[in-house]
């Protein structure tokens, strides 16, 4: 266990491991995303009330779910970076921010597009949507904060604190549809009690959520690889890699 923990702290080891994981995970993920989207868009029946517009669910919900989960990953990495000063945790935290921002952006834009035919408006300032917008600003805040500091050790500390403070927003997003009156529908998939979504719609949705988790993992590893190279550019192994002209 400690050996593994120690290995995760080794940049060349993680760089090589991520390369071999991405070689098979990335094509599988892209295939799963295309397959899941085709399944949801073309092979499911329309919703009884919303008609065909509901098909946006297969990207909107997975993007939102993974954007929220990604924030936990970023906050945990931030905590590890603060407590144990682990370089790889700092790199993971920083790598999470642009991915989380992209996924939150997808959730907000697709939700807005879904809102027009369903609610008759592109945007409402209700609790769920506003708290998701705050999530986007938190992700962008971590990206901007890191760039704002000349001293990167200080930047990492400030980003870790911001990501930890921002976790207060996550339960608010989850519970917003229960706590406040909202146009947004409550959760359809429940771990306890029955889900209120038909299995023919649930299975492609669960498939797409899994595919989005894989996408998050791939994007995280891809971003971490760049960070590792930039931080380790003075080491012999990165210079040897550059000399080889190898990018894989």
């Amino acid at each position, binding site marked *: 266990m400690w050996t593994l923990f120690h290995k995760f702290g080794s940049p060349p080891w993680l760089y090589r491991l991520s390369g071999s994981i991405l070689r098979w995970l990335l094509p599988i993920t892209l295939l799963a995303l295309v397959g899941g989207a085709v399944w949801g868009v073309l092979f499911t029946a329309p919703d009884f009330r919303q008609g065909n*517009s509901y098909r946006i669910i297969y*990207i909107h919900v997975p993007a939102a779910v993974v954007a929220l989960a990604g924030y936990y990953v970023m906050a945990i990495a931030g905590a590890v970076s603060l407590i144990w000063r682990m370089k790889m945790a700092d790199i993971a935290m920083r790598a999470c921010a642009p991915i989380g921002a992209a996924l939150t952006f997808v959730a907000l834009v697709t939700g807005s597009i879904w809102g027009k035919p369903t609610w008759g408006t592109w945007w409402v300032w209700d609790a769920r949507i506003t708290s998701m917008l705050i999530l986007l600003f938190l992700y962008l805040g971590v990206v901007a904060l890191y760039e704002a500091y000349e001293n990167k050790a200080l930047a990492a500390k400030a980003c870790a604190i911001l990501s930890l403070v921002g976790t207060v927003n996550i339960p608010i997003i989850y519970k917003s549809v229960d706590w406040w009156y909202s146009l947004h529908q409550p959760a359809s998939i429940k771990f306890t009690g029955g889900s209120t979504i038909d299995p023919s719609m649930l299975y492609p949705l669960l498939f797409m959520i899994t595919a989005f988790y894989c996408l998050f993992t791939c994007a995280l590893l*891809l971003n971490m690889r*760049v960070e590792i190279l930039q931080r380790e550019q003075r080491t012999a192994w990165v210079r040897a890699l550059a000399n080889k002209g190898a990018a894989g």
Partner: protein
Amino acid sequence: MYFNSLAAALQMDGHGAFVWSAYFITIGVVAMMVYAPRRREQRFLRQLEGQIRRSEGGNPPGASKEV
């Protein structure tokens, strides 16, 4: 397939523009998520290779070993 024709799949009873635009935007963002870091990595390695060459006095890598 649920739809009888390609036209029906594109139109989706008037919801096609919403559904397809949402999917196309997502495809664009996902493509950027995968492509951008790969491009940054390759560009960085090329820049570093150039730096190493310059620091070795304009000789290609490995040339100093032969001198």
